[in-house]
Each structure stands twice: as structure tokens, then as C-alpha cells.
């Protein structure tokens, strides 16, 4: 605004009205607060939404998958159609997986076992199953040789994927399987039923009694067991 008289303000000088310029207005804290409260929020929140919807995955080509798995072209097409219909983004995360798997076992709690299963399928451990993981796993389970299937089962039981099945790992797996049975069973599942089962398993599988089961012990023992070998053919015509 206008400068006051160089002589300073005396009683006789006119009182200068301060000019209401934009600059001086912006200095007022009340004005600043009003402006701040009425502007839009920052664009951070909308960005994250955009990000999530962009996450999707396209599988490798049909020929590549045909080469990697034992499925025919038609089977792969049918599988992908079902998979894509359920998971349009092309990825299955763990929660969805648990929900889906739990629907098959209405009486019990299948989430723990689903967690182990998820880790068995999610081979690159990135937290979601892509179509390739899905199809590769299925290929082993349905069209693989007995050794491959046993290897897959071993991989499932070996929770930390260190090549050894310890009693704790087996107990965790067993507990989760018994959890799937639920409460209303005949006979009722006791607290130590999984533990007993684990003991029997280790008695059978652990040849050198070192407390862990290695892949070779496992495969060897299973190959000697007729029941197991016979049952391996059971699920071949699933797809």
C-alpha cells in the first residue's frame, strides 16, 4: 500500500487505509486455512486405485505351455477359459485361493491346508498363482509320472523347501488335514490324532531314523508301498 509520511504518523496525519491487495490477503492465516480446506485432496488416493486395477498377467503362449506341460491344446484352452473366468486379472492371490478351496470342505476349516497348497503351487513364491503355475502343477499331478507326483507331494510337505521333512512340518500338514474334517466326525478327532499319524508316517518313511525324511527315503518307501502306488493312478482322468 501507500507508504506512510516519511515523518512518521503524527496525530494530524490522515489515517491511511491499508490497501487490500491479493498479496496481503494471502498472508492472512484465516484465508490460507479456508483455501486449504476447500481444495481437492491430493491425487495420492486415486493413484493407488489405478495401480491395483492395472495389475494383471497374461500367460505365455499356447505353444510354450503345450511344450512345458502334458496337456493337449484343447485341454489347455478349456483350462484357461475356466481360470480366466474366475480370475479375470490372471492371478490368484492367497485369500481367493483359500476361499475357493474352503468351499469344497464345508464342514471343516480348510484354510491352513489351502495355505500349504498355495505355497506348493506358487513356485516362484511371489504371493500369487499365475496360470503357468496352475497348469504346470496340474500337469504334474494329472499327467506326470509316479516319481514326479511323489516329488510334488514331497514339495508340499516340505514347508520351508529345504529338502527335508521334519516332524514339525509334517505335524503342521497333518493338523491342517485333520482340520478339514471339521468337528462332526466318527470317531471324533482327538488332539493327538495328527501326532499319532505323524509318528506312523515317520516310522514308515524315516529309514535311517535321523528324525527327518529326505526325498530319496520318501520316494523309495512310497515305491515299495503297493497301496500308494495303486492310488497314484486314481486321479488321472480328472480333466
Amino acid at each position, binding site marked *: 500500500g501507500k507508504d506512510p509520511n516519511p515523518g512518521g504518523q503524527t496525530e494530524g496525519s490522515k489515517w491511511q487505509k491499508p490497501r487490500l491487495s491479493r498479496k496481503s490477503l494471502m498472508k492472512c492465516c484465516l484465508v490460507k486455512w479456508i483455501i486449504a480446506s476447500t481444495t481437492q485432496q491430493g491425487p495420492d488416493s486415486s493413484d493407488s486405485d489405478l495401480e491395483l486395477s492395472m495389475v494383471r498377467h497374461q500367460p505365455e503362449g499356447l505353444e510354450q505351455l503345450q511344450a512345458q506341460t502334458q496337456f493337449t491344446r484343447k485341454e489347455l484352452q478349456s483350462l484357461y477359459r475356466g481360470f480366466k*473366468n474366475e480370475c479375470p486379472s490372471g492371478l490368484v492371490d492367497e485369500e481367493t485361493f483359500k476361499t475357493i478351496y474352503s468351499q469344497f470342505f464345508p464342514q471343516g476349516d480348510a484354510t491352513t491346508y489351502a495355505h500349504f497348497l498355495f505355497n506348493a503351487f506358487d513356485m516362484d513364491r511371489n504371493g500369487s498363482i499365475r496360470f503357468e503355475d496352475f497348469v504346470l502343477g496340474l500337469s504334474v499331478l494329472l499327467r506326470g509320472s509316479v516319481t514326479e*507326483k511323489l516329488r510334488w507331494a514331497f514339495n508340499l510337505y516340505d514347508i520351508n523347501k529345504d529338502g527335508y521333512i521334519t516332524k514339525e512340518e509334517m505335524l503342521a500338514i497333518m493338523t491342517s488335514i485333520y482340520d478339514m474334517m471339521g468337528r462332526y466326525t466318527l470317531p471324533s*478327532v*482327538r488332539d493327538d490324532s495328527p501326532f499319532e499319524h505323524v509318528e506312523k508316517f515317520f516310522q514308515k518313511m524315516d529309514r535311517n531314523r535321523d528324525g527327518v525324511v529326505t526325498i530319496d527315503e520318501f520316494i523309495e518307501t512310497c515305491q515299495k508301498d503297493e497301496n500308494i502306488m495303486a492310488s497314484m493312478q486314481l486321479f488321472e482322468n480328472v480333466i
Partner: protein
Amino acid sequence: MAAGVATWLPFARAAAVGWLPLAKKTMPKPPVDNSSRSDEILYVNVSGVRFQTWKNTLDRYPDTLLGSSEKEFFYNEDTQEYFFDRDPEMFRHILNFYRTGKLHYPRHECIQAFDEELAFYGIVPEIIGDCCMEEYRDRKKENQERLAEDTEANEAMDAPLPPHSTSRERLWRAFENPHTSTMALVFYYVTGFFIAVSVIANVVETVPCRPPKGSVKELPCGEKYQLAFFCMDTACVLIFTFEYLMRLFAAPSRCKFMRSVMSVIDVVAIMPYYIGLVMPENEDVSGAFVTLRVFRVFRIFKFSRHSQGLRILGYTLKSCASELGFLLFSLTMAIIIFATVMFYAEKGTKGSTFTSIPASFWYTIVTMTTLGYGDMVPNTIAGKIFGSICSLSGVLVIALPVPVIVSNFSRIYHQNQRADKMRAQQKVRLARIRMAKKGTTNAFLQYKEDRDRDSDSTALCVKNKSAFEHQHHHLLHCLEKTTNHEFTDEMTYSELCMTESVGFRTSRSTSLSSQQGAQNNSTGCCPRRARRRAAMRLANSTVSVSRGSVQELDTLHVKTTSIPPQTRSSLNAQADDLKLNCGEQDFTAAIISIPTPPANTPDESLPPSPAPIPGILRNTRATAYTHDTVKISSL
């Protein structure tokens, strides 16, 4: 089963390979799937509009028309397509349901037409997705109400009474719906008339009448014609008392009736008269008696039985109670503030009417509500300034909450409706999920029964099950074999736990128990309860029973009556031993697990805490079956 679950079933079955090395028993054979596995495109012609879809898509929902074999009835051999003579517009939505798993309700369609299409294609409307569910329900309710109004207008009569109703029920009905019988209508109008008479009499008896001869002072009519008014009052009270007693007699739940608002009003309306009869003509007490007569005005509330509007008003006030409370509270705050200010502003002046703060309350209220009687007026300048601020703010304080209350009322009313709707929807959804789960379980249990009944003939078991169901049951069966436990349903489980008693055998089962009792080391259900029961039985034992092969059980005393075998046989109408069989294993093992069965001491106290016993039952299992279900004496 939910939507795309069918897609994942092959995956779940494949993953069952993980159970194979662990299985305790051999796995069952998979169901034979004769249908061709390759997927094909189906052609569906709906009134000329051709739709094409994969067969798998339609197979996702096997309990609908398109997903089951029912669609074969509509197959046209000449054109190699399925022909439906229905609305193609609607069919688009139906088909999208199969494709996406979500059923949407098209807003421009008539709700009844949509319902009919859903019924035709065998789809339950509860599957409508959340996005369209509210709209669907609103439209449906609106439609129903409209139809109901029409039918109500057509029929004037209520539904006739159910036959063989007692006189009490009929009386209650007559009171609640006066339109049902002429007697009730007459009574209704008579009571209405007497309520009016009573209220008018109360009012009139205070009007000053001409003074009686020989006196100058004007008397209220009540004192002049005391006898007449007394007789009228007596008649009214007699009628009201009679009505109240009849209602009390007819009420289906007397306690509830006595607590209801209307009955309280009735009591309050007639009490003063009786108290007045009882009370002596005493000067001191008559003051209180006069106060009591004020309650006679409550008779006017009896009109609310006769007027729907009054009831709605009452409900409105009740529902807006919090808003009204807030209004009152803010008014009280303002009154206190202004009264204090006015008092201190007017304190000094001579002859001021603002003698105390409570006295100033009156001024504040009168000013804020813009009444302005003028009996208390500020004289000081400060008082006048604050008085004007008070009146201005009064307008604001009173005017503001009123629209808020109105809009609140409307919002709360609709919100309540929506909350009730959502709660109902939620209940329905949960019930649906529970039923679906139970359905699956029941289907599986039924499958097991069928399978065990005719184990060699597989043809009988097929019935109407889809391939999906076969495969799912096979999967559950594999799980059973892996863990060597069997699925059962809640009823059977609880029944077994309830009726489990050690000595509970029937003759046909002894042979089976001898085969399997010995080697099976799985435990029985509720072993803790078994222990407790056994212990209690030890305390009250009379009979000891030894059964065939299970000799260890001699030491435990057991009561047997005829009741348990009856319940058993009622369980399995087909005389199937399977469940019994499983029961056997439970009970033998349950007793075996008890460490020290003290032999013949009936006075044995309860055994020590179960800590040393191996295999302590998980708390989660035992909690549901606590002591209250134990009936020792009956067994």
C-alpha cells in the same frame, strides 16, 4: 455350491494327490465319467435369437434348467439346437448369470415378468448380486404392497376365525379388531362415546354456572350439580373398569398386556376414582386428592386405541426422542447462560424483577420463544442489550433444530427400513450359505448311506446326481480315507454323545464289535464326558454289564434301560448298522482310555483331573457339550 467352484473342482481333486502318501486306508475308486470330456459349443435359440455358449458354462449350475438334463426336453433335433419360446431380452440376463456368476436385475423390466423367467429357468432370486438386490427387493415390495392394497380394497371382511378357538381368543380378537363382529363394533363405539363423555364432563365441571338461588358467588358446575357429575363419573369408570378387566382376561399374555402402554393409561385413568372413594373427606388429604383428579385427563389418551393418527404421532415422537432431547439440552444451555447474564446485568437496579437466576429463567424462556409477556422487563442498558441478543438467538436456537428433526426423522425412518432390510438380507444370505453347506454335507452323507447300503450296485446310487456331485463326493471320501475318520452330521454326533453309555449295545452289533473293537485305537466322541459320566456312574452304579468281546469293561458299572436302543433304532430306520458300528469303536476306546477304573466302590468320588490322561480333548470340541446335556438318571 457357488458359481465358479465347479471350475476349480478338477484342481481340488488333483491336489488330493497330496493326501495319497499319508492315507491310512485305501482310497476309493473315482466315479466313472462317461460323458465326453471335450467342451463343445451349444446353440440356444430363444424365440429366434440365437445364443451360443460353451457347454461347461451351462454346467456350472447343475440345479437349474439349463445346467441339468432338463434342457434335453427342449432340444430340437432338426435344427440341432435348444429352442425356448421365451423372452430373448430376459434370456440375455439369464445367460450372463451363467457366464459371470452374478445375476443382475434389469431396471426397465417388470418385476413379475422377471420373476416368472427366473422360475422357468430354475434360478432362485436370492442369487441376485448385491448391486441389484436392493432395487429388486424394493420393486418387489412395492409391487406386493400395491397388489395387497387392491385386494384389501376388494375384500372388506377380515379372514374368518380359525375354528375351535376358545372364547378367550375370540374375545381378544374382538377387542383388537372391532370390525370382526357387530358386538365388538358396538362395544368399540360405546367405549369411545363414554371416553368423550368423561372428558367433556371433566371439562364442563369447572365452568362457572349460575349461582344457586340465594347466593351471589358463582360456583363451578361441578359443585352445583355434584350428584349428577358424580353419577356420570361413576358410570364412565364402571365401563372403563369392565373393559379393562375384560381385556386382561382375554389377553394371551397377561404380563405383557399389563406392561403395555395402553393398559397403563387405562389404569391411570380409572385409579383416581377408586382412590377418591377410599379416601376419607379429610381437609389435608383432599388437596392431594384434587391433584389426583388431574390424572383423569389421561382418559383422553384412551382415544389412541380409536385413532391411528395418534398412534403414529406417538411413534414419531418416540423415534425422534434423541433429537428432541438434544433440542431440549441446547435450549437449557442457552436459558442458563442468558438467565445468568440477565440476572447479573439487572442486579443493581431498584425494584428489579430479576430476583434470582431461576427467576430469570422465566424471562429467558418467554423471550427466546418470542412470547414476550412483559411481566419481567430489563431496565439497564446492559440488560436491554443482552435481552435483545437473547431474543434474536432464541429464534435461531428454536428454528434450527426443527428442520433437523424433520429431516432426521425422515432419514432415520428410511435408514431403519434399510437397516431392517439389510439385516433380513444378511440373515437370508447367511441362511443360504448355511443351507448350501448343509446341503452339500447332507448330500454327501446320503451318498454314503446309499453306497453302504448297496455296495455292489452302483447304478442305484446314481439317481439324479450330476457328475460334479459324484466327483465332489469322491473327493470327500478320499479325505475320510486319508484320516480314517468319517464325516457325520451334527445331529448324529450330538445324539451319539448324548446317548453314549458304556453299556450301550444291541445284540446285532456285538458281532461287529468283536471284529473291530479290538484293533481300533481311535477314540470316542467326548471322551472327557465319557470319563465324567463314567465317574458319576461309578458313584451311582447299580448294575454291571459285561458285553461280549469287550471284557475290560466289566469293571465299570453301567445302567441300561430300554430307552437307548429305541433311540438307536429310530436313528436308522433302515436298520443300518453302519452308524452303530462307528459308535462301537468310540465307546470301547473311550473306556479304554480311562486310566484306573476303580472296580466295585460305588462311593468313588470323581477321578482326579484329567491332566495325566493322554489325549486331552480339545476345548473347542468339549465346550458345546457341557453338563447341561448330561442326563445320568434317565440312563
